[in-house]
């Protein structure tokens, strides 16, 4: 009995120790970004430190070749660095591209390349257009499962003269030519539609309907992270057992990928 008890307490204490260990690790990893900034060595003749993250802000300091700098933060293409003398300023990615890390290899700072476009995963955008000749606004979020297949969630609103419509749908998109700059895509999906008549109309009722849709469109890589998109969608709404409505929508939009 005594043996069993000590055995149990021993087991408990190891568990407690493991738990505190894990907690300490988590805490350390949470605190780590604040304490351990990345150090790189300047290899360009000099780099320019600006007061803000943009090419329009004034240069107030210059760090020379072989100087060690600490990189603290990134905002778009600009990096906040701290020099050995304690000066903090923003440096553009291009000037840091040839810097060396502490183990003597080149640090990796990359531009957004065509490659990133081809390998994009998450894309967000919004579009404006016509749904049954009434203005429509929609936003989409798509995730590329493979380079030719994407899943997309769309929410939209139609502001008509007599009624307003909310809709959402989930689509499966096929992009058979992912390497074309002007890239066609095809999709099918399902969702829901909710039509609310304007309060001034008498006797009108709101209607909920299941929705199926087929879409065809093109998207164009504008450069950097931007994508322009034009699409045509055919909606079928199952209003009741005996009634099916069809709507056409054309929208044009702008998106970007992460």
């Amino acid at each position, binding site marked *: 009995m005594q043996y069993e008890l000590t055995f149990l307490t021993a087991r408990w204490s190891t568990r407690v120790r493991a738990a505190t260990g894990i907690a300490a690790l988590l805490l350390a990893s949470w605190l780590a*970004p604040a304490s351990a900034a*990345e150090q*790189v060595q300047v290899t360009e003749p000099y780099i320019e430190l600006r*007061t*803000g*993250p*943009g*090419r*329009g*802000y*004034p240069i107030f300091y210059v760090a020379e070749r072989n100087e060690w700098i600490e*990189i*603290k*933060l*990134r*905002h*778009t*293409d*600009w*990096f*906040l660095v701290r020099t050995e003398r304690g000066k903090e300023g923003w440096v553009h990615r291009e000037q840091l591209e040839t810097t060396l*890390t*502490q*183990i003597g*290899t080149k*640090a*990796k*700072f990359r531009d957004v390349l065509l490659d990133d476009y081809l390998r994009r995963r998450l894309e*967000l955008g*919004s579009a*404006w257009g016509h749904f049954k000749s009434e*203005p429509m*606004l929609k*936003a989409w979020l798509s995730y590329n499962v493979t380079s030719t297949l994407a899943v997309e969630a769309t929410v939209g*609103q139609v*502001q008509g003269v007599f009624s*307003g419509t909310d809709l959402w749908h989930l689509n499966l998109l096929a992009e058979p030519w992912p390497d074309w700059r002007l890239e066609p895509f095809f999709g099918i999906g399902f969702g829901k539609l909710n039509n*609310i008549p*304007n*309060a*001034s109309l008498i006797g009108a009722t709101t209607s909920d309907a299941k929705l199926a849709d087929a879409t065809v469109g093109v998207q164009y890589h504008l450069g*950097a*992270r*931007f994508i322009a998109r034009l699409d045509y969608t055919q909606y079928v709404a199952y209003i009741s057992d005996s009634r099916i409505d069809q709507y056409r929508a054309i929208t044009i939009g*702008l998106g*970007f990928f992460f």
Partner: protein
Amino acid sequence: MRNPAPCKVLLTVALGIWPLLSSAADQSPAGEQVIQPQLDRRDVKVLHIPSNDFELGLFTGTYSTQYFGSDLVGGIRLGYHITEDFFAEAVYGNTRATDEVFRQILPGGVFKNQEEKLTYYDMSFGINVLPGEVFFWRHTAKPSALYLIAGLGATHFLDQRHFTANAGFGVRAWLANWAALQIDMRDHIFSLDVLGQQRSTQNLEFSGGVTFFF
């Protein structure tokens, strides 16, 4: 207990090496040096640098609904800075409108209640222009930028939704690398038929707020 493992290992190694040694001796003629590769091992280090391209902000100010007075507005904004020049932003705001002026000459008024809620949302694209510095005091200069912004959205007012376009400009001044002050002037344009005729209305909003980057 006797452990046979070391003997086994030794035997296996000896047996494994023997053919190699004998074949090497067969192939290389005497006196010739076997090439020693002069390659350094390359360590690849991936830098982990935190970024703050997203912003979340709260704002308050005044929203003037055309024909229906002006009132306090409050809202929330979520943004993403795509490049140093462009950013995308989604905003939700909420204010109140009143038909008090109409009630003075029309006893029933125009609305059901004297005050009606107005909410709006929009998705906009902005461009940073005129970057510069603002001087908060003699020794404190902070980066700032004027931005132009335009977008589309909807306004929910009097149980109806109205398609709304917005355009405006604002100033953003960074207080720290993670926070900024933002002053914004925006025109929301939507059409309304409450006064008997479909009319396009201009609704001006002037607001200020704090934005946090993450």
